[in-house]
């Protein structure tokens, strides 16, 4: 029981009092692990992350049912200011840099939860993981490439010394080589810092390669879970998320498209 850092018990999330997005999601995240959350668009992955980080509130969403336990205490519906100070940092989808701040200033915003404490060493740690940022540290973030921005927002989150890092689609819109590099660094951060990571991804193949455990979401529910290796072997996952036939060859998109109708669990 001690090993569990984050636990969601049967939570429901409603936006604007009428739109129910999560319908009883339960999952648990062990310490020092990478847990990946897979699923198609609109399955509720991002909403799950926001429920944890407290960012539902400014979007008019609310956890109406269930509990979120972080290190044993309930944190659902707390403000983002409070939750980030517990050590939970979410890296938003679509990167969201501060465009008119330099790279280094962007990183310094990451110290908000530890205001007043020295941050030089943290800066160097971030530059150690992302040497590309060091070269551009005086440039405006608005002029960086997508890959650099992804590194920037992850580095910015690291500045806060998170215990739990929520990564929302870090591979979105990046070239395959860059994606590979980013995932390598995610794994490295997990191993060297011991940071627990929840990874939301469309790129199931890459996500399962680095994750220890995985959950599959569909229509606001968890429909499948298992260790990353088990999930990789699962015929349904292979078919629907890895785009392979049972025999292991890649299938074409036209075939993949009609799978939705045949999903057994819906």
């Amino acid at each position, binding site marked *: 029981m001690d090993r569990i850092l984050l636990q969601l018990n049967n939570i429901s999330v409603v936006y604007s009092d009428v739109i129910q997005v999560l319908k009883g999601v339960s999952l648990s995240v062990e310490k020092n692990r990478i847990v990946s959350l897979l699923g198609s668009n609109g399955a509720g992955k991002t909403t799950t992350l926001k429920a944890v980080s407290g960012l539902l509130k400014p979007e008019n969403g609310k956890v109406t049912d269930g509990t979120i336990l972080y290190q044993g205490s309930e944190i659902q519906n707390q403000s983002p200011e409070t939750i980030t100070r517990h050590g939970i940092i979410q890296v938003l989808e679509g990167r969201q840099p501060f465009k*008119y701040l330099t790279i280094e200033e962007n990183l310094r915003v990451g110290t908000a939860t530890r205001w007043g404490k020295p941050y030089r060493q943290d800066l160097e740690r971030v530059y150690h993981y992302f040497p590309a940022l060091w070269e551009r540290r005086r440039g405006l973030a608005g002029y960086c490439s997508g890959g650099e921005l992804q590194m920037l927002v992850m580095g910015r989150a690291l500045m*806060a010394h998170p215990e739990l890092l929520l990564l929302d689609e870090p591979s979105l819109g990046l070239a395959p080589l860059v994606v590979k590099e980013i995932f390598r660094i995610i794994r490295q951060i997990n191993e060297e810092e011991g940071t627990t990571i929840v990874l939301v991804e469309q790129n199931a193949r890459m996500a399962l390669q680095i994750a220890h455990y995985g959950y599959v979401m569909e229509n606001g529910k968890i429909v499948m879970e298992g260790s990353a290796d088990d999930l990789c072997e699962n015929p349904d996952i292979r078919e629907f998320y890895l785009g392979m036939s049972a025999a292991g060859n890649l299938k074409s998109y036209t075939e993949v498209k009609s799978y939705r109708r045949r999903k057994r669990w819906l």
Partner: protein
Amino acid sequence: MDFFIQLLVGGLSVGFLYGLSAMGFVMIFKSSSVLNFAHGELIAIGAYFFLAFVTWAKIPILLSFLLALAGCFLLGILIERIFLRPLIGEPLIFVVMLTVGLAAMFKGLILFIWGGNLFTYPDFLPKALGIDWKIIRIPPVYGATLIIGTLFLILFGLFFKFSSQGIYMRSVADNQRAALSLGVHVKRVFALSWAIAALVAGMSGMVLGIINGVNVHDLSGIGLKVFPVVILGGLDSIGGAIIGGIIIGLLETFTGGYISPSLRDVVPYIVLVLILLLKPYGLFGLKEIERV
């Protein structure tokens, strides 16, 4: 030539003041996208705080000045806490209308306490602050304005560029959602920007009070002049506010001096209309960095 230099110096210092008070306006707009219609009243309140400390409480000038600044700072925080925080999440127009209400309230309060008469501060500025060299004659008050104004500008420049709190403030102006996700205390940033805005507004109110005397209607009228200044400089540029202020100040004094004193107060608004037609983002307004 003598006359020209007099006007130049006068215009520069008045413009500098406009710019400083516009800077507070821009700061609120940048951090929370709120147009503050109570800005003129904040300017007036600063002048009256100073007046109260100097003439009623008979506190030494320098201490009064600092106390009045502190009072304005506190007032800014209170405004955010009491009136604006409950409106977070509501449409922006509510907040803007609220500032219109605040303006009426503050003005009424000042009229209630002090009445609409013209007050003057005792003459306290040392002669050494002025310059009297051949044809260049700068009255002490303008010298003081330039010194204090420059000091404030440097301080705020350093604050926003290097201090952590200043960087958090800029991050909120830049991308509120991302700032929130990193645990930046967005409400504290709003409070701080109102406090700083009230502080610089109050400061320019005090100096304007020294130059023209303290009168509610005159001082709160300056709040309206903030609009041409910020629209000229660009609504979201702090540096632009200063330069816009100086341009408007110079235009005013030169029109007043060479053409007709009655045109003096009209010129800023003519400029406002022209700028809106020709360069709607102002001289230094932000051009979005767009990535596709």
